[in-house]
C-alpha cells in the first residue's frame, strides 16, 4: 500500500492520525515530509499540527531510518544491568554511533526508555521485537540474523 492509500484508510477515524502514522512507518520506517503534508490535508488540520504530532512521539521519525531499527533501553533497571556495554557492542558491530544508520540502509541505532520487559534486563528491540537478557557477546549473532 502506498501512503496515500493508508491515509485514506484512516481518514474517517476520529483522531486517527497517530494510527495512520504507525501504519505508514510499518511500510517506510519513517515519515517523509510529503507524508506529513498530505496527512494534514486528509485529517483537515494545519500542516504545523501534523508536523507537531510527527515530532512529539519518540517512535516516529522524520529522518530516514534503516530497515531495522534497533532500540536500546537505557532506563535505570537496564542501565544498572549493563546497557552501556550493549551499546558499545552494537556500535562496534555496526560501525555507527547511537542515533545513526548504517550506510547500506539496513540498521539504525536509537535509545529508548523502558520497553516493559524489565524481568530480563538489559533489553533491546529490533523493529519492536524484544531481545531479553542481552549480553555484548550475543550482539554479532543477533545482528547476523538480519543481514
Amino acid at each position, binding site marked *: 500500500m502506498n501512503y496515500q492509500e493508508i491515509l485514506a484508510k484512516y481518514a474517517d477515524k*476520529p*483522531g*486517527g*492520525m*497517530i*494510527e495512520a*502514522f*504507525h501504519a505508514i512507518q510499518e511500510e517506510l520506517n519513517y515519515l517523509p515530509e510529503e507524508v506529513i503534508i498530505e496527512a494534514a490535508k486528509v*485529517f483537515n488540520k494545519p500542516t504545523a*499540527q501534523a508536523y*507537531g*504530532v510527527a515530532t*512529539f*512521539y*519518540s*517512535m*516516529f521519525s522524520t529522518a530516514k531510518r534503516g530497515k531495522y531499527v534497533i532500540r536500546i533501553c*537505557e*532506563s*535505570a*533497571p537496564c*542501565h*544498572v*544491568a549493563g546497557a552501556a556495554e550493549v551499546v558499545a557492542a552494537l556500535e562496534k558491530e555496526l560501525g555507527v554511533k547511537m542515533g545513526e544508520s548504517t550506510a547500506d540502509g539496513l540498521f539504525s541505532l536509537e535509545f*529508548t*526508555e*523502558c*520497553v*516493559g*520487559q*524489565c*524481568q*530480563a*534486563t538489559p533489553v533491546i*528491540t529490533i523493529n*519492536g521485537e524484544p531481545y531479553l537478557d542481552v549480553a555484548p557477546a550475543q550482539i554479532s549473532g543477533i545482528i547476523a540474523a538480519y543481514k
Partner: protein
Amino acid sequence: MAEEMRIVLRNYGKIDPLKIDDYIAVGGYNALNKARSMKPADLINEVKSSNLRGRGGAGFNCGVKWNFAYMAQADQKYVICNADEGEPGTYKDRLIMEGDPQSLLEGMAICAHAIGATQGFIYCRGEYPSVVKTLNMAIAQATEKGVLGDFSIEVRMGAGAYVCGEETALIESIEGKRGEPRIKPPFPPVVGLWGKPTIVNNVETFANIPAIVEKGAAWYAGIGTPSYPGTKIVTLTGDVVNKTFFEVPTDTTIREVIFDFGGGIPDGKGFKAVQIGGTSGAFIPAANLDTPIGFDAMTEIGAVLGSGAVFVLNDTRDIVDVTARIAKFFAHESCGKCAPCREGTMRMHDLMDKINSGRGKSADVVLLNKLGRVMSYSCLCGLGQAAPAPVMTTIEHFPADYNAKLV
C-alpha cells in the same frame, strides 16, 4: 513467610488467553451479568465501598470517580483503559493483558454499565505491539460471543511518550494530537475525551472489578491494608535474586517483598536502597524497610507505591550515577508545555551530570533541592511534580555519596 495472593492474576498461566471459552469456563463474565442486573447507582456504591483505589499511581477511589461520570449528563460517555505503562521497571499491565485480556474487557464493560457508556478505548503503549494483537483478538471474540452487549472497545496505540500515561495527555493522544496534559479542573469524568464525561482507569484497576462484583465489596475491603485494600502486583528489578513479579496483599512490607519474595540481594552483597513506584518514585533507605507497601503507609515515609515497580540497588552501586540517569529520563520525557518542567528537568539533568562527573560543588546540591521544591509545586502535571523525588530523596538519605563526588 508472607504469601502471594492472586486476584488480578487469578487466571494468569491457567487459561489460554486467546480463548474466550476458557475464560467463560472459569466463571468469566458472570460478574458482568451480575452487574447488569444491578442498578448503576447500586453497582457504583458496591465498588465505592470495596474501597478499591486506582492502581495507576494516584490512588483515587474508583467508585467515587465512577460516580462523577455517572452523575454527568451527556449524550455520550467514554470508558478508557490506561495501558500506557511507561513507568520504567513496570510490566504488570502487560502481564494482565497477555495472560487474561478478557478480565480487562469485563472490568471495562462493568464500568460502562455503571456510568452509561457505550464506547471504550484501550490506550496501549506502542512498545507492546504483540499485546495490541492479543487485545484485538480478545475484543473480536467477545464481540462475536455477544458478551459485551452494546459496549464496543477499540484499541489505540501510543507512540513512545511517557507523559501520555497522564490521563489528560492520554486523552489528547487518542484525539490524535500531541500528548500534552490539560489544565485541571475540569477532570475527565466531567470533561474528557472529545469533551465528554470519561473514566480513565488503569489496567490493574479494571482487572480487579469482576472479582469485586462477584465476591462483594466486604470481601475485598478485608484484604490487605484497610485504607488501600486488595493486592498489588510488584515487579522486581535491579539487584535482587528473583527478578520477577508477585501479586501480594497491600499490607506486605517492603522488606518482605525484597527479602522473602525477592530472595534478597545476590552475590552476598548488602542492601543500599530501593526505589518503588517507578522512576518517579523516592529512593528508600534500609531504615524504612518495614513499611507496608499500601498507598498511605508509603506516603507517610515520603515515598510512593506508584506502579508497584521495585528497583533494588546493592551497596556497591553508584547511586549518584543512577540518579543522573533518571534525571536524563525526565529531561527527555518532559513534554515542554509548562516552563517549570521544561526548564527544570533540563537544569536538574545538567546539575546531576555535573556532580556525577566530578565537577559539582556543594552549592549545586543546595540548588538541586531548591529547584526540586519549586518544581514539585509549580509544574502543571505529575511528571514535573514527581521528577525531583529521586534526586531529593537520594540527597536526603545518601549525602555521603554526593559529597564523595563534589570538588
